[in-house]
């Protein structure tokens, strides 16, 4: 086998070697081929040779043309073609071509020869001229030689190229052959190796199968032996476990367990046995005789028993062992009572299991004792005693049962409880069932109450107690029990319950504290309130603690003032105070009542009186509210009783009289409010007749001013007492306003009338004036031809006519007519101003300027007419600096100023005022958007009557003939009608007179749209 593998390796190595050699050879061939290709691929010599030949011939052609004198060929062209020819052989520029050329046969020689030729040609070419046959011959000769050598070189180059091609082809052939060999050897080697591997693989598979079979066999054998070993180990382990479990079970058991062999020697004993016999532990050992143990026990028992008794005990034990008694009871020397169960096995060994029955014995004893005790005890507290058997039939009954039921004890014996009832003695509905359930469940019961009817029919409550009885084996053997008559106690308890229910149903807080001041009761209402969110109070807490809890609760709920009230309430506890009211906050109040009880306890009853307190407060609030309303009224309200004494007095009354309500209260009305003197009779009448009476615009004087008030008296009955309420309303303003309105209306109507009249007068006046003027013209016109003609016709001269008229004063009269007519015309013209019609245009004006001009005009005007020195009047100007322009008609406003100034000056002159002065003020009210012009003099002023009529047309205070009474009327209409302004007069007699003109900034607005419309058209 080894040899075979060696062959494979050797073959593989050989094949690899052959392959490597062939591959290297192939690569070399490829490289060669590449080199040949490269050589061939470089700049082809053909191109060079072709170009060189062409350029040489070109030069020769040019040279021959020049030599022959051919037209169109210049010397320069020949030289250029020579240079081109030369450039082909330039040593520096030939580079690689050189190398290629040198590779060709005669290449080097040809190049070197050509260069030599070129040097020879150069001087010949330079001097060549037409017809220069010598030079040309030389050139031709040299060029021919050159061309021949070049030709030879071309042939050689072509041959070289052919040789290269042949070389390339042969190289490719060789390469192909080598590749073929490589491929064949590769295939052959590959096949051989694969075949060898397959063969070797088959052999290995066969060997492997044999080996595998052997291994499987061996494994199966091993597995089997392993399994048996495992099984054995498991069995052993289980049996060991079981023994261990058994021993552990015995050890943990409270029973005493020991095994003895056929010779009564210990084979096994458990922990309990060791524990029980701890005193004689030395005598107990595996393999030790049991008798040794018994002897040891006896020896250890001390002097309690004599030797024969000891021997007897040992004999008893050994006898028991021999007989293998099933239940062998023995008392150990420790006093423990044991019962042993012994079993002798087939091989003679004994297994013994013993139980400590000391506790059982003791419980049996205790039960007997308990029974007798119970009987004694039951008889002491109970009215009767009873016993029942397992079927719950009475076996024994004694005592006063006859007194309750009216049936003798014998009646009950042998009957169940239900059987013992008769028609007269029977249980109350529902009671019996419960009793049976408890007894059926073998439960103990105490103070179980059932109601029955006595033999005489009265209801009686019986309390029964009983407990089940069991024998030593734990079997139920019946009940024992006692009964009592608790009718009276029940009645008392029920009464208590009713009382508590009643207290709980009250809407009061009731708490009771005992003599130790511990809370022993609180009613449901109190609990519901205070323990609503959390358990604040509970039974058993002291008063102080309860009060603290309550205080915290009240603080949280109502904002209770703990600081103020906590200590107070604490002090009041057990020191009762009548009507103790505790404010809890938020208008909540508790009325607290405490009563000490005979047993030293205390009962506290708290009543919520918030609602009633709230009603009181509401009334108080309402009263305040009403008082506020009355006080806030602007009217004076005075309440009086039947004797006209003050009972009510509002704030307006206080303000009017400067007497407070306290001061005025119960005083005579006349004392505190004298101006109602005249109304006393009316007040009395209103009270008596119970009828309301009113007195409008009653006049009174206050600080020298005339005032008006409306007085209303309302009769009043309060709480059975009569009285009245007097209301006084100051109506001065309204009265004055209405008077002013009447005045204004009057002015308007008079103005309209005057304007109408003026129109009517104007027409006839015009005719009259014209006629007068014509008359004058006809009487005085000396040059008028018509006049002269008329005189001539009448045969009078103009002079004589003149003389006549002069003598008779006719001309004077006619002039008088014209003058009067003019005066009428002025009046009419003024009257026309009363109407609104006006053609003049409004424009923005500087009022200060207008006023100053008017001042100037009036001074001149006055001086002329009255010889009055206007300059003696002191003028004070107070003009606002930033006055805006005011839209008005300047001429008319000036007229108004003139009128006022003229009147003022005249009045001052007439009154002979010592230091006459005008104070002129101009202001602008931005809010109202109007200008205020005040013209004040210190003249005699105006009395009330004059003041009221001053703007009426034709009203004048001047001497007859000096004034028309139209000046201020016209002014009034100019301001109010034409400018929508106001003209006011204010005066105090003998002190001053002040005219105030208010002009709106934008003039008469009513006119604006009209004017705008006119502009459009």
């Amino acid at each position, binding site marked *: 086998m080894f040899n075979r593998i060696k062959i494979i390796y050797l073959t593989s190595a050989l094949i690899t070697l052959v392959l490597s050699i062939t591959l290297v050879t192939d690569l070399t061939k490829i490289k060669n081929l590449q080199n040949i290709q490269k050589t061939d691929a470089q700049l082809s010599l053909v191109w060079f040779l072709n170009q060189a030949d062409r350029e040489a011939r070109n030069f020769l052609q040019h040279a021959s043309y020049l030599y022959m004198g051919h037209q169109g060929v210049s010397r320069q062209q020949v030289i250029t073609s020579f*240079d*081109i020819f*030369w*450039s082909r052989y330039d040593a520096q*520029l030939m*580079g690689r071509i050189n190398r290629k050329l040198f590779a060709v046969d005669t290449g080097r020689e040809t190049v070197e020869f050509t260069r030599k030729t070129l040097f020879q040609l150069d001087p010949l070419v330079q001097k060549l001229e037409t017809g220069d046959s010598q030079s040309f011959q030389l050139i031709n000769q040299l060029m021919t030689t050159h061309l021949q050598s070049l030709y030879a070189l071309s042939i050689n180059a072509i041959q070289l190229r052919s040789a290269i091609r042949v070389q390339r082809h042969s190289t490719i052939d060789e390469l192909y052959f080598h590749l073929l060999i490589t491929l064949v050897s590769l295939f052959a080697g590959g096949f051989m190796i694969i075949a060898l591997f397959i063969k070797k693989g088959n052999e290995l598979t066969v060997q492997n199968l044999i080996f595998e079979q052997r291994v499987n066999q061996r494994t199966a054998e091993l597995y089997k032996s392993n399994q048996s070993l495992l099984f054995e180990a498991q069995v052993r382990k289980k049996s060991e476990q079981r023994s261990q479990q058994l021993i552990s079970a015995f050890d943990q058991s409270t029973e005493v367990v020991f095994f003895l062999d056929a010779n009564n020697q210990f084979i096994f004993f458990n922990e309990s046995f060791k524990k029980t016999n701890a005193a004689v532990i030395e005598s107990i050992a595996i393999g030790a005789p049991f008798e040794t143990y018994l002897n040891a026990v006896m020896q250890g028992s001390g002097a309690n028993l004599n030797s024969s008794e000891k021997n007897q005990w040992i004999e008893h034990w050994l006898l028991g062992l021999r007989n293998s008694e099933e239940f062998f009871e023995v008392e150990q020397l420790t006093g423990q009572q044991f019962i042993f169960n012994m079993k002798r096995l087939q091989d003679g060994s004994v297994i013994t299991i013993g139980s400590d029955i000391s506790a059982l014995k003791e419980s049996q004893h205790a039960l007997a004792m308990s029974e007798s005790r119970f009987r004694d005890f039951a008889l002491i507290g109970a009215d009767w005693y009873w016993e029942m058997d397992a079927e719950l039939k009475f076996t024994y009954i004694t005592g006063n049962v006859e007194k309750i039921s009216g049936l003798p004890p014998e009646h009950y014996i042998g009957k169940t409880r239900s059987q013992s009832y008769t028609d007269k003695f029977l249980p109350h509905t529902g009671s019996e069932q419960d009793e049976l359930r408890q007894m059926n469940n073998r439960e103990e019961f105490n103070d179980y109450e059932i109601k029955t009817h006595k033999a005489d029919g009265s209801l009686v409550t019986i309390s029964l107690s009983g407990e089940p009885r069991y024998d030593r084996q734990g079997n139920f053997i019946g009940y024992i029990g006692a009964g009592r008559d608790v009718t009276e106690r029940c009645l008392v308890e029920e009464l208590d319950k009713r009382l508590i229910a009643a207290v709980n149903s009250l809407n009061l807080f009731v708490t009771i504290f005992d003599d130790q001041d511990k809370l022993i009761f609180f009613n449901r209402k109190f609990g519901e309130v205070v323990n609503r969110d959390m358990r604040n109070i509970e039974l058993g807490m002291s008063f102080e603690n309860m009060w603290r809890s309550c205080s915290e609760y009240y603080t949280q709920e109502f904002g209770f003032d703990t600081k103020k009230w906590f200590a107070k309430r604490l002090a009041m506890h057990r020191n009762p105070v009548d009507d103790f009211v505790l404010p809890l906050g938020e208008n909540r109040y508790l009325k607290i009542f405490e009563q000490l009880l005979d047993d030293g306890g205390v009962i506290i009853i708290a009543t919520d009186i918030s609602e009633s307190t709230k009603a009181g407060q509401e009334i108080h609030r309402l009263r305040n509210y009403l008082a506020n309303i009355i006080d806030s009224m602007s009217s004076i309200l005075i309440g009086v009783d039947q004797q006209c004494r003050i009972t009510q007095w509002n704030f307006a009354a206080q303000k009017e009289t400067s007497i407070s309500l306290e001061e005025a209260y119960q005083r005579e009305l006349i004392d505190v409010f004298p101006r109602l003197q005249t109304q006393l009779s009316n007040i009395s009448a209103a009270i008596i007749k119970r009828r309301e009476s009113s007195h409008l615009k009653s006049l009174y004087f206050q600080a020298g001013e005339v005032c008006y008030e409306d007085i209303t008296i309302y009769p009043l009955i309060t709480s059975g007492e009569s009285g009245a309420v007097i209301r006084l309303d100051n109506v001065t303003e309204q009265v004055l306003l209405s008077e002013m309105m009447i005045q204004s209306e009057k002015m308007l109507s008079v103005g309209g009338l005057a304007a109408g009249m003026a129109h009517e007068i104007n027409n006839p006046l015009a005719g009259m004036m014209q006629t007068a003027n014509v008359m004058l013209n006809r009487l005085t016109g000396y040059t008028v031809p018509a006049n002269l003609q008329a005189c001539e016709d009448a045969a009078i001269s103009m002079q004589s006519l003149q003389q006549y008229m002069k003598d008779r004063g006719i001309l004077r009269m006619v002039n008088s007519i014209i003058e009067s007519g003019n005066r009428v015309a002025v009046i009419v013209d003024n009257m026309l101003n009363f109407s609104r019609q006006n053609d003049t245009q409004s424009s923005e004006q500087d009022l200060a300027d207008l006023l100053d001009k008017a001042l100037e005009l009036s001074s001149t005007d006055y001086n002329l007419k009255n010889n009055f020195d206007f300059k003696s009047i002191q003028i004070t100007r107070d003009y606002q600096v930033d006055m805006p322009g005011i839209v008005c008609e300047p001429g008319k406003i000036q007229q108004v100023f003139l009128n006022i100034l003229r009147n003022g000056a005249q009045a001052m002159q007439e009154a002979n005022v010592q230091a006459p002065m005008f104070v002129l003020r101009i202001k602008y009210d931005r809010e109202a958007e109007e200008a205020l012009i005040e013209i004040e003099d210190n003249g005699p002023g105006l009395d009330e009557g004059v003041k009221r009529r001053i703007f009426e047309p034709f009203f004048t205070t001047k001497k007859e003939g000096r004034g028309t009474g139209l000046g201020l009327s016209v002014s009034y209409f100019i301001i109010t009608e034409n400018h929508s302004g106001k003209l006011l007069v204010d005066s105090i007699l003998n002190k001053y007179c002040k005219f105030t003109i208010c002009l709106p900034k934008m003039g008469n607005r009513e006119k604006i749209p009209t004017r705008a419309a006119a502009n459009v058209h």
Partner: protein
Amino acid sequence: MIKVLVFLAVTFTSQSVFAAVLSEAKGEIILTVTGNISHTNGASNAQFDLAMLQAMPQTTIKTETPWTEGIHEFTGPKIQDLLQLLAADGNYIEATALNGYKVTIPMQDVIRHSIILALKHNGKILSVRRRGPSWVIYPWSDMELSRDHKYYTRSIWQVKSLNIL
């Protein structure tokens, strides 16, 4: 690999002077440009003498060439500058040599390879014998150029005229 080193020799003659006026050739005319050009100084062509070409910004290319051994230095104006000067517009340049040899150079060669019209070779003015008066030179040392044979044929020497197509 020898790196291509391109040196820009910028003369201080302002190009804008040429742009404004193409002066007359005073010396021997060595280059005639025809075709789609805007600026001319002859009958619808532009004629240059050596001085005019040398007055333009000169560029020097140090490179190997397929015809020479070792590194050589070629100096002359960039063809792109020349075309700009004449405000030429076209896709090809048809270059003709003294011996009538013609090649067509695409305009993208001019733009991409900054080819020059060499007037000097290793600092000497090119004569016709040394393949002058001008020679189109590519930066051959650029691998891309040297690999492609077509560029060899475009590198025309003894250039006589350029026709912009």
